[in-house]
C-alpha cells in the first residue's frame, strides 16, 4: 500500500528532525571535519579578499589621503612626545617594582593564529588554532597592537571560534578615560559596542580611551578596547551609556594572538 502524501510528508519531517538532532549531537565533529580540509582554501581566500578590498579602499579614498597624511604627521608628533613621557614613567615604575620586589610579567604567553573565516550573521571569527595547539574555551584574543578582540568560544581539533567583543553575547567590565570610570561594554552586533552602567555623575567625553579592568575571568587588565564616540544620556536612567569605536577591525588583519597565560 502506497503511503499518502500527508504520511510521506510527516515521515520526511520526522527523518529531518532526527537528522538535525544527530548532527547537533556531533556538531563539533561535523564542523571540525569541514574546517579541517577547508581551512587552507579559506586562508587564501581571506588574504586575497583583504588585499583586493584594500586596493579598492585606497582608490576610493585617494582624495582624502593628503589631508589624512597631514593629520597623521601631527598625531605622530603628539604620540612621540607621549612615548617619551611613558618611557620615563616605565623607568620609574621599574625602579619601584624592583624596590617592592614584585613579580610582574611584562608580556603574556601568546599563541599566534590566522583568521580563516567570518560568520556572516554573527560577530565571530574562525581561526586556525584549536585543541591541538593548547587552546581552550574562554581564553582572551588580542590583536598585534594588543587591543582586545574577543574570547574563544567553541574549540575544535584544529580550529577555534572567536566571539568578538561586538558579539551580542559579549559583556566585559571596563574603565573609561583618565579617571578610570567603571562601566561594562556590551556587544551590539555588526562591530558595534556600547558602554553601559556608567554613573551619571561621572563625566566622560568623546575620545576617552576604554580599557579592560582585569576583573573578568581570563582577561588581563589595561588591554585597549576602543574610544568613546558618542555619549547617550537618558533622564530616567541612573546610568549613562556611550557608543564605543573599537580599535580592532577584523577586515584589516590576518593574524590574532591568544593569551594562554598571563
Amino acid at each position, binding site marked *: 500500500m502506497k503511503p499518502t502524501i500527508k504520511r510521506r510528508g510527516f515521515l520526511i519531517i520526522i527523518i529531518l528532525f532526527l537528522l*538535525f538532532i544527530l548532527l*547537533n549531537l556531533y*556538531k563539533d565533529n561535523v564542523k571540525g571535519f569541514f574546517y579541517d580540509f577547508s581551512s587552507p582554501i*579559506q586562508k587564501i*581566500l581571506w588574504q586575497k*579578499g583583504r588585499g583586493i578590498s584594500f586596493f579598492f579602499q585606497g582608490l576610493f579614498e585617494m582624495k582624502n589621503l593628503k589631508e589624512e597624511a597631514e593629520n597623521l604627521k601631527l598625531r605622530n608628533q603628539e604620540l612621540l612626545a607621549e612615548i617619551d613621557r611613558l618611557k620615563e614613567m616605565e623607568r620609574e615604575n621599574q625602579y619601584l617594582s624592583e624596590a617592592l620586589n614584585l613579580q610582574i610579567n611584562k608580556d603574556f604567553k601568546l599563541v599566534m593564529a590566522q583568521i580563516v*573565516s567570518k560568520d556572516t550573521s*554573527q560577530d*565571530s571569527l574562525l581561526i586556525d588554532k584549536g585543541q591541538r595547539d593548547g587552546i581552550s574555551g574562554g581564553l582572551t584574543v588580542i590583536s598585534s597592537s594588543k587591543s582586545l578582540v574577543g574570547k574563544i568560544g567553541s574549540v575544535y581539533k584544529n580550529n577555534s571560534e572567536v566571539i568578538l567583543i561586538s558579539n551580542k553575547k559579549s559583556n566585559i567590565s571596563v574603565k573609561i578615560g583618565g579617571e578610570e570610570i567603571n562601566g561594562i561594554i556590551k556587544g551590539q552586533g555588526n562591530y558595534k559596542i556600547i558602554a553601559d552602567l556608567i554613573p551619571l555623575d561621572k563625566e566622560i567625553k568623546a575620545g576617552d580611551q576604554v580599557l579592560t579592568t582585569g576583573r573578568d575571568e581570563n582577561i588581563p587588565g589595561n588591554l585597549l578596547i576602543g574610544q568613546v564616540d558618542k555619549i547617550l544620556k537618558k533622564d530616567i536612567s541612573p546610568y549613562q551609556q556611550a557608543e564605543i569605536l573599537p580599535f580592532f577591525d577584523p*577586515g584589516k588583519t590576518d593574524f590574532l594572538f591568544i593569551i594562554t597565560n598571563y
Partner: protein
Amino acid sequence: MPKKILLTVLLFYILTLIQTSFLVHFPILGVIPNSILIVVLLINLLEDPKGNLGIASALSGGFFLDVFSQKPIGFYILILVFLAFSIKFIIKRHVRIPTIKNI
C-alpha cells in the same frame, strides 16, 4: 539528476567558502550580502516548480551556512527550505513566468 544534485552541493560548498572568507571584506552599506540566499532564491524562482533542484540547493546551501556559522545545524536549512517551498507554492498557484525548462 543525482549528478545535478552533486554539482549543486559542490557549488554551495565553494560558494560558502567564498562567502565566509572572501565576500566578508566587501560590505555594501555595512551589510555583507548573503550570496547563498540569493542563489537559492534565484534557482527556486527560475526552476520549474515541479523540479527538485531548488529544494536540493536549499538543503545544501543551508547545511553549509550552518556548518560555517555559530548557529546550530538545521537553522539555515529550515529557513532556506521553507523559503524554497514557499516560492514553489506561490509560483505553482499564482504566478506564470517563463522557467529555465521553458526557455
